[in-house]
């Protein structure tokens, strides 16, 4: 089982998602954001960067996070990113349509090119990853897009090519919504995604 560390911001949202809910069991260590710069990450297999993290602390520690990845480890980022700091990701901001599901015959616009990936054969369905997005990535060649928009923008993808490790990046923000007691799909997403992160095929 992989040891998962999370950059922990102490907000009510992170408190619920990563500390007091059923999902805390998947987190080996919560690293207080203020102590992140001085924390030794070498014992961890996965570093999870939550949505709504402190942007200044993130910016000051980009090199540290890349060093972690380049030691052959896994970095996971939830969206939306605060700046263009992910490897070769080509972020495209798109205005969020919070209301798509109110329209008759609504289509979320999401597609599942990664239907055969372990994450979606054993842990999640596309419905579990469907609420809204804040933009898309256009990752470089060689990255594996698991969830996309209908025009091919990446909503969740795996990057094994741009650093010495693996990045799992998504524009989705399940931890924020679950921590806000909002959007039932985000609970289902975390119920599949975190066990996969701990023991699935990445």
């Amino acid at each position, binding site marked *: 089982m992989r040891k998962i560390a999370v950059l922990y*911001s102490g*907000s*009510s949202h992170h408190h619920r998602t990563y500390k007091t809910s059923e999902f805390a069991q998947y987190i080996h260590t919560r690293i*207080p954001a203020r102590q992140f710069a001085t924390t030794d990450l070498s014992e961890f297999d996965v570093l999870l960067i939550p949505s709504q993290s*402190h942007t200044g602390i993130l910016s000051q520690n980009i090199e540290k996070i890349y060093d972690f990845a380049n030691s052959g480890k896994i970095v996971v980022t939830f969206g*939306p990113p605060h700046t263009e700091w992910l490897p070769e990701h080509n972020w495209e901001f798109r205005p969020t349509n919070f209301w798509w599901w109110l329209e008759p015959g609504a289509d979320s616009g999401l597609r599942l090119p990664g239907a055969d990936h372990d994450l979606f054969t054993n842990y999640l369905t596309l419905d579990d990853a469907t609420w809204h997005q804040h933009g898309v990535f256009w990752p470089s060649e060689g990255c594996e897009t698991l969830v996309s928009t209908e025009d091919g923008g990446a909503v969740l993808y795996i990057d094994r090519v741009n650093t010495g490790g693996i990045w799992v990046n998504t524009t989705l923000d399940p931890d924020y919504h679950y921590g*806000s007691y*909002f959007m039932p799909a985000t609970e289902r997403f975390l119920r599949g995604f975190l066990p996969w992160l701990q023991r699935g095929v990445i």
Partner: protein
Amino acid sequence: MKDYIVIHPQNVFSPESIAPQFDCIDQYDLANTDLTLYKCMIVLGFVDQDFLLEEKAMIDSFLEEGKIVCFFGNLVTPWLQGQAMFQPKEIRWHGDYNVQIASDHFLFDGVLEDDMTTNKGVKGFFARGHHEAPANAEVLLTLPGGETITYIDRESTNGTIFMHAGSCFFQLGLGMQLEQNKTTDVIPQRMLQWVDEEWARLQGGANNA
């Protein structure tokens, strides 16, 4: 004396450019900030509540000096004197999110309960739980079970605590388009007026322990 100090969590969803009438600090600079300059502290919902608990003495002192703290969010650590932890609402149907005006107060004079409850016909944005108000608090808004989502506490400290279990009532951001052509549009301006009036009341020394 300035009016406002905003304790900012520096996350993506909190306003980036703050209007000049509000002084704004990164939450982690709190210990290095001279709070004697300010009347009212605005604490935003994404703040690091473990950190604020470590700095509780500063916030206690601020209130002890007869000042105002406004918190908008879900309290999960006991950094704010006398306040109960957030309790999520158990939702059985969407009507459980209906916001109700509990007492006459100019903040919500003419504001329709339905305008607070719904956004584009969807409920649940305003508050998804509550903090149990201390005894003798002035309760402003509740959920249908009487859960106190918005209240003013003048008794737990020597100052005044304004609690709302939801988004910020002040319009902090430059260029933010909060107006929705709803009756709720008046709330940000009235919050400024309320702080002025509350400050005058506190300076008068009335009603406080």
